[in-house]
């Protein structure tokens, strides 16, 4: 990663700040921090989270221990295939959450590498959910294999189109993608409420009083490879998510498309000078980005949710968590994978691991969001952390000079 030749003087900070996009600058700063900074960030976030727990009158160590157990991480100490075993069950749930977060994280990371901030992962995830539900509840007699593939592909495509709208608006009229993706989130949100709500096209056909969709037919459900399907086992979508990490890396580093994405992300003007069509790349990168989030929705729907109710919509946060995953994961494939696992474990561990004795129940479900918020805050405060780190080194060197 750091291929800087040893005989090159460090470039001036002004130079770094002068050129390139926001993405380029953050990228540069993050590279200078290495892997230490994200690890440090997580540790501090956990410390502060612990302080909050302590302030509420509970023992933070017990709370974190419970979260670890709740996330099923104690399974690694006593591995067993028995899924009735609580640790194994908890781990399957953590992996389910990880699957989703890998993909929503990639959705943010890919756009980021093209110099854009995709806040719309949540909306793209929603359209993926809805489309997969529609495909999965229609064509009941379709063969299982094609039905699953069609459902997943349609969900990814829907996410791509949804995000592509924001890319198109940016490329043509210059609408900022942060604004337009937020707007699109709300459109997806309310469109979903209409689809599933009273009289909506996706509403339950058997019981018209329930604001719930139909169930995905068994033929369109993803095979479960670990755990009980009735109790939400880990479906093969987990491997699709892992494959997506590999694809993400390959596309960015081993294809001309990825070269264009990175060139535009770092310096659109130089990219245009190089003969790259910048507008096309903005639209395409957003679409690919949205495909990841749409895929997340598709896998969730066909993998374990099977149905969605109106009340599920406001609760869903995985698209937004993807932002934290991408930021913490440095927008790299490996980083996103690890960060997704961390947040997946937190998400399930806090909601299911914490007994009311070890933590204030009001706090339990919110601890993930506290830690998430702190991590996002600290990622933004990278400069500060690096500055403190460097000035410490400066001080030490000064002390040596004096001595």
């Amino acid at each position, binding site marked *: 990663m750091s291929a800087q030749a*040893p005989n090159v003087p460090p470039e001036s900070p002004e130079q770094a700040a002068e050129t390139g996009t926001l993405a*380029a600058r953050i990228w540069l700063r993050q590279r200078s921090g290495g892997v230490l900074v994200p690890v440090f960030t997580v540790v501090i976030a956990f410390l502060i989270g612990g302080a909050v727990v302590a302030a509420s009158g509970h023992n933070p160590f017990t709370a974190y221990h419970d979260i670890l157990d709740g996330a099923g991480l104690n399974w690694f100490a006593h591995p067993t295939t028995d899924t009735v075993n609580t640790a194994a069950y908890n781990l399957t749930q953590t992996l389910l959450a990880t699957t989703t977060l890998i993909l929503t994280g990639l959705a943010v990371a890919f756009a980021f590498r093209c110099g854009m901030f995709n806040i719309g992962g949540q909306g793209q995830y929603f359209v993926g959910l809805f489309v997969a539900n529609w495909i999965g509840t229609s064509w009941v007699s379709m063969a299982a294999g094609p039905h699953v593939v069609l459902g997943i592909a349609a969900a990814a495509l829907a996410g791509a189109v949804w995000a592509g709208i924001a890319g198109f608006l940016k490329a043509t009229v210059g609408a900022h993608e942060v604004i337009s993706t937020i707007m699109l989130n709300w459109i997806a949100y309310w469109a979903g409420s209409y689809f599933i709500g009273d009289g909506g096209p996706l509403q339950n056909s058997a019981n018209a009083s329930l604001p719930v969709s139909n169930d995905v037919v068994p033929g369109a459900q993803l095979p479960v490879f670990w755990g009980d399907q009735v109790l939400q086992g880990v479906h093969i979508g987990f491997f699709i998510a892992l494959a997506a990490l590999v694809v993400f890396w390959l596309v960015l580093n081993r294809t001309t498309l990825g070269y264009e994405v990175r*060139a535009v992300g770092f310096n659109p003007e*130089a990219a245009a*000078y190089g003969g790259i069509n910048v507008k096309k790349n903005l639209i395409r990168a957003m679409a690919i980005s949205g495909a990841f989030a749409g895929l997340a929705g598709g896998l969730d729907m066909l993998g374990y949710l099977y149905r969605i109710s109106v009340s599920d919509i406001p609760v869903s946060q995985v698209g937004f968590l993807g932002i934290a995953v991408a930021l913490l994961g440095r927008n790299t494939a490996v980083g996103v994978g690890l960060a997704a696992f961390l947040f997946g474990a937190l998400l399930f561990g806090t909601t299911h691991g914490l007994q009311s004795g070890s933590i204030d129940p009001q706090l339990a479900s919110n601890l993930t969001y506290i830690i998430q918020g702190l991590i996002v805050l600290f990622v933004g405060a990278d400069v500060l952390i690096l500055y403190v780190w460097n000035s410490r080194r400066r001080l030490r060197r*000064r002390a040596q*000079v004096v001595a």
Partner: protein
Amino acid sequence: MAEEFVLEMRGIRKEFPGIVANDDVSFELARGEVHALLGENGAGKSTLMNILYGLYKADGGEIRLGGRPVTFASAKDAIEAGIGMVHQHFMLIPVMTVAENIVLGNEPVRDGVLLDESGAEERVRDLSQRFGLAVDPTALVSQITVGQQQRVEILKALYRGADILILDEPTAVLTPQEAIELFEIIRSLQADGKSIIFISHKLNEVLEIADRITVLRRGKTIETVPREGATQESLARAMVGREVLLRVEKPPAQPGATLLEVRDLLVVDDRGIEKVSAVSFDVRAGEIVGIAGVDGNGQSELIDAITGLRRAAAGTIKVAGRECVHATPREMLDAGVGHIPEDRQRRGLVLEFSIAENIALHDYADPPDAKWGWLFPSRLVERARMLIRQFDVRGGGPLTRAGGLSGGNQQKVIVAREISRDPKVLIAAQPTRGLDVGAIEYLHRRLVEERDEGRAILLISLELEEILSLSDRILVLYEGRIVGEHEGEASEEEIGFEMLGGKREAA
């Protein structure tokens, strides 16, 4: 001779990881003197001045101010000790007025807390009158010219009580006229007893303004000489460490077929203002056509139109006889137009990319770099390694980040990329801006070589000297029109006159 030194720096040493930026550097500044610090990019001038200004801590050596040893922990200490620095990149707040910027950090107040707006303006007016630095204290910084912004920076330093003024490459951002005005300002500061350190790598300037000249090379002091007796040649030799050819040697041109044909070209800028009006000219194989002109007279828009980066509103462009209508940058590249852009960091390179990736910037999607959309990084690296050797790029290998290279080597990467594509037409826009003597010599020689290879070269430069020494034909651009054309020996005065619009009616 008992000279009084206001500043002595002795045995200064500063190391960065892997490089000794200052190695036993000594520098003395007499009261009321203009002392030039001359050296190539990366010679250690900026490092030395950053140490003096408290931005870096020296690893060794001592600094004496008025005979007393001092140590600066920060720029604040240096400012309090009477040192002011005007950086290459100005540090002004564009939305504030000139007066507000100048008093920032040390504001006159009334009633204890409120900014004394009129008091500030008054003091700024006093200062600017005393030193002949004409600038309106009530103007917003965003609305004044670069030259005026520089005066604001100087005033800011004076306001804080600077006796020693460091000017870091002050003319790099100025037009020739503004540079002349700056020199007058420097002389009036000098007359007032201020001591000035003038950092530059331009020989003619240094010889014009400095009383003494200290030359740095690779982090070491080479010599300190008085202006009397110094010549451009002797200074260049000290800077580079070998004999340097300051004049370009070129045999007469052997022009061939017309490769670039521009007819009645009309280009408007983003605001819809006409920047290039009915421009027509030809560039033939084996000749260098220079376009002279003061900055902002349509050069950038002309280049953008020829390279496809901006759509021409009217007119035709033919490359090697083929008409290119509303061509995209990609189409112009494919038609055989190479382009060394005027802003190498903003446009010519993706600084975060490696050298290898930058060399592939035009051809990344074509074999052998890629096939069916699949990229072969090892082939990029292989090609880069070859070009790095061929074009003598120093400071890193194929995987080195382009942003980590010196300006001269960045330019070599661009030149290597453009020339290796074997273009028919090569557009060189300000190819030597910000480069040091050695790199300029290399680039000029290279351009003449490429001309002799049979390329049509269009040279756009703000430095008249460069145009005069390289071009076989010269066109003068003024307010978007060609107002003069010269072949063979052209007089500098005449072209300079036309550049300011002097012969517009006659043309």
